[in-house]
C-alpha cells in the first residue's frame, strides 16, 4: 500500500508532467518571471526530488531551455541552460489546493553572463 507521502508525490509528479499545466508552472511572484519565460525557450520540465511533510510537498524541478532573449541585462547566448525551480504544493485528498513557485537565479546567471563564462572559476551558486 502506498504511503500518503508516495501518493502526494504521484499527484504532483503527474501535475508537473502534464503539458497543459505549463502556464501554471511558469507563474511565480518574482518580478522577472515574464522576462525569464520569454528569454528561455523550448523548455522541458523534470522533477528531480520531492520533500513531503503532511499535506505539504516541495518539488525541486529542473528546467532545460535555450537562451534566446534578453534576461537580467544579458543578451541571448543561444546556450542550453538548466534552471532550478522550487515549487511548494498543498495537497489534500489527492488534490492540489494551492501552490507557489520560485526560480533560482544564482545558478542561472553564471550560465549566461559573459564575465562568468570567461572565468569559469566564478561559476558557483550561492
Amino acid at each position: 500500500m502506498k504511503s500518503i507521502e508516495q501518493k502526494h508525490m504521484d499527484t504532483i509528479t503527474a501535475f508537473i508532467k502534464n503539458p497543459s499545466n505549463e502556464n501554471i508552472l511558469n507563474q511565480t511572484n518574482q518580478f522577472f518571471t515574464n522576462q525569464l519565460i520569454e528569454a528561455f525557450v523550448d523548455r522541458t520540465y523534470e522533477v528531480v526530488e520531492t520533500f513531503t511533510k503532511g499535506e505539504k510537498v516541495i518539488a525541486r524541478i529542473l528546467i532545460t531551455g535555450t537562451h534566446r532573449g534578453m534576461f537580467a541585462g544579458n543578451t541571448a547566448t543561444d546556450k542550453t541552460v538548466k534552471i532550478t525551480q522550487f515549487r511548494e504544493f498543498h495537497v489534500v485528498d489527492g488534490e492540489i489546493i494551492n501552490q507557489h513557485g520560485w526560480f533560482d537565479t544564482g545558478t542561472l546567471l553564471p550560465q549566461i553572463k559573459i564575465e562568468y563564462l570567461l572565468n569559469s572559476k566564478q561559476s558557483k551558486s550561492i
Partner: protein
Amino acid sequence: MESLEEKNVEVVSKFIDVFWNDSDFDATERFLSEDYQELSYGSKEGLKKFAKTILDAFPDKQYSVEEIIAQGEKVLVRMEVRGTHEGVFFGTAPTGNQIDVTLYRRYRVVDGKITEHHGWIDMVTMWSQIRGS
C-alpha cells in the same frame, strides 16, 4: 522520543542560527562532518569565505527559516535573508539599500553531523535590490 527527522531539523536549525546568524564560523568544526561535501561554495573553507563576504557586505544580516522539511537524511530549508548593504559586495560599493531575498538550502545529516550542503538563491532579485532598480 524524537524521530530521526526531528533531530536532523534541530541540527540544521541550530547550525543556521550559530553559523549564519551569529557568524560563529568556527562552528563548522562542531556541526560539519569530516567528509563534508560542499556543493555550492567548493569546500568548507569556501563556505566560510562566502559567509564572511556576506557579513562584510551586510553586517546586520539575519536569516529566518520560513519552511523546513526533513525526509530521511535530507533537510530542505526555505529561508529569507534580510540586511543592509553597508560594505563592498563583489565589487559593488555600499548603497545603504535593504535586501530581502529568498533562498533554499538542502542539507544531508548523518549521525548528528551535516555531511552535505547545496544552496540556491535568487541573485537577480538581490542585485536589483542592491542597485535600487
